[in-house]
């Protein structure tokens, strides 16, 4: 269980890198793409935290988070397209 710290650090680095694109990105869709990737990475982070704290209830949190993030990204994309 020691190696899990390394994986959490890798995920933290990945989240920071995509955060750079959120702040820097020249267009709105660039930021949306970065947020989409960040939500996917955060779902993996929640699943890893469930293993870290040995609580199975955190997996349900990850599932609900994935569903809500999908709905949010779809809504933003429809809004960008002008159809909402």
């Amino acid at each position, binding site marked *: 269980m020691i*190696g899990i710290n390394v994986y959490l650090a890798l995920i933290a680095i*990945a989240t920071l890198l995509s955060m750079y694109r959120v702040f820097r990105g020249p267009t709105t*869709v660039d930021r949306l793409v970065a947020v989409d990737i960040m939500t*996917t990475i955060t779902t*993996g982070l929640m*699943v890893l935290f469930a293993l870290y704290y040995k609580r199975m209830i955190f997996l349900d949190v990850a*599932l609900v988070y994935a569903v809500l993030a*999908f709905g949010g990204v779809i809504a933003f*994309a429809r809004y960008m397209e002008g159809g909402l």
Partner: protein
Amino acid sequence: MNVLAAVGEILVLIGTFFYFLSALGLIRMPDVYNRMQTSTKSATLGSLGVMVGVGLWALGSDFGSVAWLTKTIVIAVFLLLTNPISAHTLIRAAYKSGIPLWEGSVVDKYAEHLMSKTEKSEIVEEEGDAE
């Protein structure tokens, strides 16, 4: 640590490495289409690795049960189904809101598709006028 935990840990390592690669592609690539191309694919693969790996790892640990593997596989299948949909919708919104392609891009199939559709409709309209 038994075999299941070892296999799960290797899968989690591969998954987090692909997460890192997707974030790297988000920074390195020149325009929004290339960024979406690299980051979505590798993030989906990384999610599969992390979810299934955590399920196997918990199954091999002393506190784990089969419910861990079931729930993680449910999350993995959901992400596998919805990630391409959100990527496709976002990138179509980007194209329709007029973001230009990178100057190094050599082919634009969607523009050709739209062009052929308009040409067909024009031909149909001309035939209708002739009649």
